[in-house]
């Protein structure tokens, strides 16, 4: 096992004293850093030298046409076994993420809200999340049931979820909206340092979208970095990003402030493709 998973000293000290981690001079930047990442699946290169930095406390959106490799990026960050990293580096607060197992990445503070969350038949949301929260506690320490449920109900209220929901099996027979809401509930409960939200808006009607966005916005703060992956600008009306990146053919071709999203909405992705083409020629 990995007893040293909280191995970055400044944070341990910060927790013990109860002070903000910013009261220390960190040995590294608090950020999710992707450098020149290259990824293959079945010998096909999907991500082709992508670089991106998401500082803790910021919300970054990645937009891009279908097939640009956005979802692949999300899965690779989480450590999906089907994808093969052929080059580059990913660090989280200075720590090499790529050498960690998927569950270690999660416990170190990386969360992925899935585009298509799996069903876990027979396992209730309450039990599933309880196991997940317990997995983050030091060995030998037991999660206090009353504290856990108090927090769970609080977060469910935030997301407009009925309490009876906790006794349903994870994602089994859920509507698209219920699945996405459940993903955000897990995000709220697990308190990661970095969250990747993969097409969280897809399949949501406007009311559900608003509720989910409200949930995400309430989690925004100095201790969470968010990477929003989306095809449509719509979501960004509700979760306003600090930065917007355009991904085409496996790399970031343009980055800008939130206004870039509006420009994409107006002009579509074709012009970015042309730019990407030019880049390739150069």
């Amino acid at each position, binding site marked *: 096992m990995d007893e040293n998973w909280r191995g970055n000293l400044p944070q341990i000290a910060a927790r013990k004293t109860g002070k903000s981690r910013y009261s220390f001079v960190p040995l590294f930047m608090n950020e999710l850093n992707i450098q020149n990442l290259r990824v293959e699946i079945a010998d096909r290169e999907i991500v082709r030298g992508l670089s991106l930095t998401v500082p803790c406390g910021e919300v970054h959106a990645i937009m891009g046409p279908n097939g640009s490799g956005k979802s692949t990026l999300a899965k690779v960050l989480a450590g999906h076994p089907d994808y093969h990293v052929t080059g580059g580096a990913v660090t989280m607060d200075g720590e090499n993420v790529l050498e960690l*197992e998927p569950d270690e*990445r*999660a*416990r170190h503070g990386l969360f992925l809200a899935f585009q298509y969350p799996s*069903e876990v038949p*027979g*396992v209730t949301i309450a039990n599933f999340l309880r196991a997940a929260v317990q997995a983050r506690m030091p060995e030998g320490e037991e999660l206090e049931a009353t504290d856990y449920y108090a927090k769970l109900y609080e977060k469910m209220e935030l997301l407009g979820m009925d309490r009876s929901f906790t006794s349903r099996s994870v994602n089994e027979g859920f509507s698209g909206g219920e699945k996405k809401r459940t993903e955000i509930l897990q995000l709220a409960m697990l308190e990661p340092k970095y969250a990747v939200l993969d097409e969280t808006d897809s399949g949501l009607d406007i009311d559900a979208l608003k509720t989910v966005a409200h949930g995400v916005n309430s989690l925004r703060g100095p201790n969470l970095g968010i990477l929003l992956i989306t095809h449509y600008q719509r979501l960004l009306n509700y979760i306003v990003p600090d930065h917007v990146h355009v991904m085409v053919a496996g790399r970031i071709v343009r980055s800008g402030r939130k206004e870039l999203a509006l420009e994409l909405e107006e002009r579509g992705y074709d012009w970015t493709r042309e730019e990407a083409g030019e880049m390739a020629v150069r």
Partner: protein
Amino acid sequence: MKTETSAVDINRNIGDFSYDVTHAYDAGTGLSEKTIHYISDVKQDPDWVREFRLKALKTFLEKPMPTHWASKDLEAIDFDKIRYYLSGGTQAKRTWEEVPEDVKRTFERLGIPEQERKFLAGVEAQFDSEAVYSNIKKAVGEQGVIFVGSAEGLKEHPEIFRKWFGKVIPTGDNKFSALNSAVFSGGSFIYVPPGVKVKHPLQAYFRINAENFGQFERTLIIVDEGAELTYMEGCTAPKFNTATLHSAVVELVAMKDAKIQYITVQNWSANVFNLVTKRGLAHENAEVKWIDCNIGSRLTMKYPGVIMKGRKARGEVLSIALANDGQHQDTGAKMVHAADETTSNIISKSISIGTGRATYRGLVHVPKHLKNCKNNTECDALLINSTSRTDTYPAITVRGTGNAVQHEASVSQVSAEQIFYMQQRGLSKAQAMSLSVNGFVNDLVRQFPMEYSVELKRLIELEMEGSVG
């Protein structure tokens, strides 16, 4: 049993441990009339029991192995190398410190009570259950419930015992019921008088001793009119010194309006052939329910059955089987409808891990002349690895009109995506696997008594640990 006298050639290093034991009574290896006389002499059997045993021996010798449908693995049993009767065992003194570390760890993780651990590990020859369960014993005794060993039952209560003994499961039912009938020792005899509802489940632990963990125990339970009983046997902990062949017979009789629930949770070591015959007889409006959980063993063949003899009788089998590497769980149920308006329900869940194999065999019989009989069968199999195997052999005969039968079967796999999803939430691969498996059996486990369901959950976690690379 020592390695050199082992009936089958297996690797005893995995999950199994034993000590040398010397016995005051030992029938030696092999089976003949001499063996039967030896057993009857030692046990001071009444003549009718000696006759019963001798007849059964003849049947056993005549009957072929059920190899035309059963696993060929049965042929590995060498009946000449088995010791059919051992008792009065005294072990060389040993201490808790000598118990292998991994066994201690397993007890620890299963949450087995301290006192029971020592017995199960063979440190103490006798588990002092009298003290622990004396309150229950006193309570049921006052209600007129008889709860004794089968040897005591047949001597002290012949008027009830003899009437039903071997009636639900005749000697010649199968080769192994015949074997049990010839050499049985140990097991329980319970009689619940009319109208008595036994509140607390009675447990085999109640009068636990070495013989109780014997190879050929025989249990007979009679619950009289309108009475109710829950009986629990087994234990989820690994047991020391388990013999390689375990062949029990359990007969249940539920009189008019009576209810019996019989719960088994067993975790055999990987060298055991567990060949057990269990059947209940349900009279008018009576209910017999088997809850059966099989973990471990090399080969288990067990199909708890209910004969619904009276109108409106009900039979139910809920079973969970977990077949790990190299193991074969051949389990199922038999529902014989023999009166109008009888209903039966079978829910079977199996999990195959590694090269484990789970087989479901279900027999449902409704003859032509009956009316308004119903059966529901659901069997679900879960495969963990690509090398895991499952088979389903339903044998359903429903004749006549006005009878309804419903059969559903499913095979599912824990998908890589599901495991990845759970890992992404911070669960290790093994935790993810065991949570998935627990989810699969969850709706059944909920029907188990609390302490068993908790132990079972932990046990599944233990079993899953080795399944992921």
